[in-house]
């Protein structure tokens, strides 16, 4: 429908930081670097508007680059998990 096209693009909002699904290789490196299982990471729901927008599926890991007061940019990772609807 035409109205759907007009929806506001949330990724362009100033309060939404940069999100990206990381590759399999990056994922391995990340888990090795912190010596952790994926479930030790902070979580994000698959129903989160950002997850839906970038098409993240449960089990994938998102890389998030935020603006920070202390460091200029802060990198963080979140594991996509299935929501209870």
């Amino acid at each position: 429908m035409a109205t759907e096209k007009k929806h506001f693009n949330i990724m362009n909002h100033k309060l939404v930081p940069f999100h990206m699904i990381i590759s399999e290789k990056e994922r391995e490196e990340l888990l090795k670097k912190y010596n952790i299982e994926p479930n030790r990471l902070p979580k994000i729901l698959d129903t989160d508007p950002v997850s839906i927008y970038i098409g993240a599926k449960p089990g994938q890991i998102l890389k998030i680059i935020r603006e920070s007061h202390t460091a200029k940019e802060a990198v963080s990772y979140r594991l996509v998990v299935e929501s209870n609807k």
Partner: protein
Amino acid sequence: MERARSVTKKIGKIEFSLLSPNEIRKMSATKVITADTYDDDGFPIAMGLMDPRLGVIEPGLRCKTCGQRVGKDKCPGHFGHIDLAMPVIHVGLIKTIRNCLRSTCRECGHLLLTDKQREEYFKELKRYNQEGRNTTYLLKQVIKDCVKAEKCTRCGREVGKIELDKPTSLRENGKKLTPSEVREWLEKIPDEALPLLDINKKSARPEWMILTVLPVPSVAVRPSVTLQSGERSEDDLTHKLVDVIRINQRLQENRDAGAPQLIVEDLWELLQYHITTYLDNQTSGIPPARHRSGRPLKTLAQRLKGKEGRFRSNLSGKRVNFSARTVISPDPNLSINELGVPIRMAEELTVPVKVTSHNIDWCKQMIKQKYLGSDDHAEYIPGVNYVVRETDGMRRRIKVTEKNAEDVAEKLEIGSSIERQLMNGDIALFNRQPSLHRMSMMAHRVKVVPDKTFRFNLCVCPPYNADFDGDEMNLHLIQGEEAKAEAEILMKVQENILSPRFGGAIIGGIHDHISGCFLLTHKDRKIPLDDASHILAAINYDGKNFKTFTEDGKKYISGKDVFSTLLPKSLNLEYKAKACFNCDTCQAPNCPHNAYVIVKNGVLKQGIIDENGIGAFKGKILDRIIRDHGMDAGREFIDNFTKLAIASITLFGFTTSIDDEDIPDEAKKQIAEGIGKALKKISGLVKAYEAGELESLPGRSLEETLEMEIMKVTGKTRDMAGEIAGSHLGMDNSAVMMAKSGARGSMLNLSQMSGCVGQQAVRGERISRGYQYRTLPHFKRGDLGASAKGFVASCYKSGLSPTEYFFHSMGGREGLVDTAVRTSRSGYMQRRLINALEDVKVENDGTVRHAGGQIIQFIYGEDGIDPTRSMGGNAVDIDRIISDVKEGV
């Protein structure tokens, strides 16, 4: 980097289950049928609430169930039971009961779902459990679907509407359900349906939620106490159980005698009330059961809940040994690391010392020396309170007394340990509540002193937020060597000078230290040589001789040189002192007010040393010394400047009194004139408003504009009065010296004392409430003038008029209420925050994780900077680097 895995155990699951009536009877030592406790001879009545089969509490008596005594072999106590004449609903489970009734059929007990729905839910539940997901949401959905059903799919019975009347009564289609009816209904629910009702069929049956038997806790849970008068006083639980048994008995008798339905129902309700309050006496909707004195009873839920409950008061927090508490008082002669501990305390508090081949002689000496009759009675001699000998697992603790000291010392063996009294130099933790930050608990070196109070250096007041108006503080002795080392490295006062809150010093000069340094360094203070020697003797100065100069045949030393003795030779620093006037054009290096401080190569060249030099929170010199020369140097600097400042202020003399606020008549006239003008201006504004000539500010109503304009005028008036008063109070005035140097008080305080107190405000507005259309009956209705709305034109010194006094009290009261509200609210906020963050820590790889290993932050603070070591929160102090480069350091 391999992360060191801490030994944490994860709780797999916690299972809650219900006791079945059979289990309650099986574990019961006796049935309780008598509502009395003891007979006339003081013996417990059999099958009463104090039946000896329920356990014993008096030492020496044997329990009739297990044959054990209370002391040594410890009878744990045994449950009894009361058989209830009629079933009763358990308040704690009423919500679950409601849900069960709502989602099952009264006729056949099956779930109100279609076969298809049921199958789907079971499949879903299985999937959730396999994936280890939380099933709460799914199970809520089951109930929601069941409520929608209109007819049972099995038997076709129409579904009634179940309503819950808080706290314990249920209605179906408006008709009350008795507990018996509810129980019958719940019995019908088949085991297969239980998983979808969130009940584990292995651990509970729904009908167990209706009580038919009540367990009676052992006497160990509800001990009775004998008062001095020989009277027995029973525990609250016993009182409540007496009520339960009594009503239960009456109910049974009435029912068996075939009493009218109405009476039986009333008694049944009453039994329900007693059991409900027995379980939780704060159930909403029913009045709490009270003691004869009117005090609400503390029943089962109250024992566990809240701040005074079992969890917060006995499990999360406990009373500890090797601790002490008393009033605190100041001692400027102690180092900031030291703590004065009263002798009486030191003789009671002990530290264990293991006897080895290296220290056995010393240990023997310790045991004996207290009783060896010393000449010097003023000196404290630490002794030994106990000697602990361990042979074949047997521990023997021998008390050392004057009589056996010699004997015990001779028999001392390697491998025993002695419990030594507190000695000078021991490390102890010192704490003041509320412990709001980590500096609320720091390690001090003990110094045993006479009298009865803890004493410490005044510089350590700010981190503890302590004063000496009767504050008490706690001391905790360190018992092991590892703990001692840890405390010494991490918790000593000198290691906590810098605060992690803002990356600056939290320990530094206060009050008289600042006044003292101010006196020493302001203007070109010259000190006669002998006086200077007195001051320098306070810090045991033994450096080279001073540059002296002679005036009128007397030798003098500059005060700045005296202060310079404390500074390291490499110190180079320039900054604006607190006394800076913030002139429009700053003549920086040549400040006419002597407020630009220059230190070159450890010599104070010019400027006043005040709060911005040595003060807690702000001291620039202090900060620099700690950063460049370390904590030891910092401690030494603080210890020395306090002594130097106190010596100086004692020598010069310093006093303030009400005549410090005296201003000349001509100044008073000027202020009065100014106030007169302001009042006229305000009445002018009011007139303009009333005539409708006032122009409103953008976005404001006319009234708001008037208020804002008037507030502006009153504000200006106070400032004007302050300025006039201030200009007549010179720098030789002690009160002004304190305000300008930052020692205590402000110029605002002074101008309120000698100029004008100013506008009083409640809720940020001029005072407007009280009577109809006026604040006080002294004014006309609708008076919008200055004095009718809380402007205080007088100063504290001349005194306030009655109406002014009243307005001032209103403003003051608001301040008090605000602080009271703020502390309680922020305290609760802090509690929630700490409970959420208590097990979060920074790991070796820089990540922030909680105890379970979940990552909270990938780099601490997103930049990995320890705020304690930052410069006021910034990782790098760029100004410092630039100035260092310029000077070629």
